[in-house]
């Protein structure tokens, strides 16, 4: 069997060489061990190619060209949007979506939720997302919401890839990149705000502890509070995050920091899970995508990976 497969490959290589201008003799010289078997087949192939090297008559070519041009002219032409059309849509779609979200709730907006980038309802979908974002007030909430929108972008990329729509895959990837960048910025803000809050609370806690418990070390910096040492404690265990170790005592003192830390950890968990899930989805799509779409999907994967890694890194507590 191996010989047969080898021979099929050699025959094909010789045919390719002949198409590119090499002679039968040149091919046979490359594979003398197969020359006896190859030669008659290559001659037949050459005769067939010669026979098939036909061209339509010039009068037909001319007539066909004229008919084709006439057919083109009678095609219904998709008119380009008026220059101001897109601006008009942007100006009105957002308030319209807001109105629909607030008044109608479901219905059109619900239908738009599943709209794809090549759908007329996609503008409503984008505007609806903007409205949802506007009505989300905490950075943590905005970050989580953006990551949910990134899930939608990944779904859109997969669907567009399945439809072979290269351009839309690229456009949705660009949109996803922008949203990942937003998540990263939000996460950085969350982390900085948390550090500042912790520093303030440490100060308060230290002052309080100074008055009540001797030996409690106050952190020296606002950005990277060191793990504190409670001399009253006899345990040597060091949890991975100093903030986790602090939580019980801080909760007693502040009644709130541990919740913030937990929120950050939860957000990190959510983002990590979504990253892994979406990465898997895109990699699966890449594996079965035609070559023409692979570069666009590889780009999408790279954008997703870099964006999420940065976003998650920005949440790592100092």
């Amino acid at each position, binding site marked *: 069997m191996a010989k047969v497969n080898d021979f099929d490959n050699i025959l094909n290589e010789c045919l390719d060489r002949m198409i590119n201008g090499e002679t039968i003799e040149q091919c046979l010289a490359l594979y003398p061990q197969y020359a006896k078997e190859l030669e008659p087949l290559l001659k037949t192939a050459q005769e067939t190619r010669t*026979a098939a090297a036909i061209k339509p008559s010039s009068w037909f*070519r001319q007539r066909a060209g004229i008919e084709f041009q006439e057919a083109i002219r009678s095609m219904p032409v998709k008119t380009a949007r008026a220059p101001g059309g897109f601006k008009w849509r942007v100006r009105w779609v957002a308030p319209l979506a807001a109105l629909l979200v607030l008044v109608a709730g479901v219905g059109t907006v619900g239908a738009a939720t599943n709209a794809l980038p090549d759908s007329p309802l996609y503008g409503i979908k984008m505007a609806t997302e903007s409205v949802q974002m506007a009505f989300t007030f905490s950075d943590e909430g905005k970050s989580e919401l953006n990551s949910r929108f990134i899930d939608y972008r990944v779904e859109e990329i997969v669907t567009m890839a399945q439809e072979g729509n290269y351009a839309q895959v690229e456009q949705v990837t660009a949109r996803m990149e922008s949203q990942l960048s937003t998540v990263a910025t939000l996460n950085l803000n969350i982390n900085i705000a948390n550090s500042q809050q912790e520093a303030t609370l440490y100060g308060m806690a230290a002052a309080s502890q100074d008055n009540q418990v001797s030996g409690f070390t106050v952190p020296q910096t606002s950005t990277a509070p060191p793990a504190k040492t409670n001399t009253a404690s006899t345990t040597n265990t060091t949890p991975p995050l100093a903030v986790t170790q602090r939580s019980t005592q801080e909760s007693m003192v502040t009644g709130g920091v541990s919740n913030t830390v937990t929120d950050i950890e939860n957000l990190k968990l959510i983002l990590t899970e979504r990253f892994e899930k979406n990465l898997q989805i895109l990699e699966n799509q890449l594996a079965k995508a035609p070559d023409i779409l692979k570069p666009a999907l590889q780009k999408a994967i790279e954008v997703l990976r870099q964006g999420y890694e940065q976003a998650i890194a920005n949440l790592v507590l100092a």
Partner: protein
Amino acid sequence: MHRVTPNIVVPITIGTPDGSCQVQEEVSLIRRAQQGDQVALTQLYEANFDRIYRYIAIKIGDRTEAEDMTQQVFLHAIKSLSGYREKGMPFSSWLYRIAHNQVVDYFRKQSKRATVPLDESLPIPAGDGDPKILVEQKITMEEVVVATKTLTAAQQEVISLRFASELSITEVAGVMGKSEGAVKALQHSAIVALRKALATE
């Protein structure tokens, strides 16, 4: 017996005769063509016209019919272009499918009426005009067209796509929805069968 060409599963790149039309350019061209861009439509037409003609002509062996059918393939393509979706299938593969269906229809109709004598209907060879060469090519062409008819549908398809349209093995695999290995094996058996058929004529 002709089969309908199965769905395309392998992506292929069909270029212009000089090979300059790359995948992305073709995608862009098709998008423009779908929007009614006459230049893009003409480019696609020019890039594929001769190949489609040769594909049909070598299958049916009738110049006049091949010309008309080639024209019908492109007119049909214009009408259906808005519904064309890439889905990993190059534009030319879509054209070959239309052409293949035209050939199937042609043979279906032919089976119900008398055929045109081959020597009066064969395509004009693309030779240099030397009468001797023309005669030799015409004879070979007649033999090949007749011999090809003794092959299986799949073997005929490989011969038409590989030697008339001059597609690469990857492209043929894409059009036929088969693996490259399967097409290579099919190509081998097709040439062997063709040789035997030619020898008996």
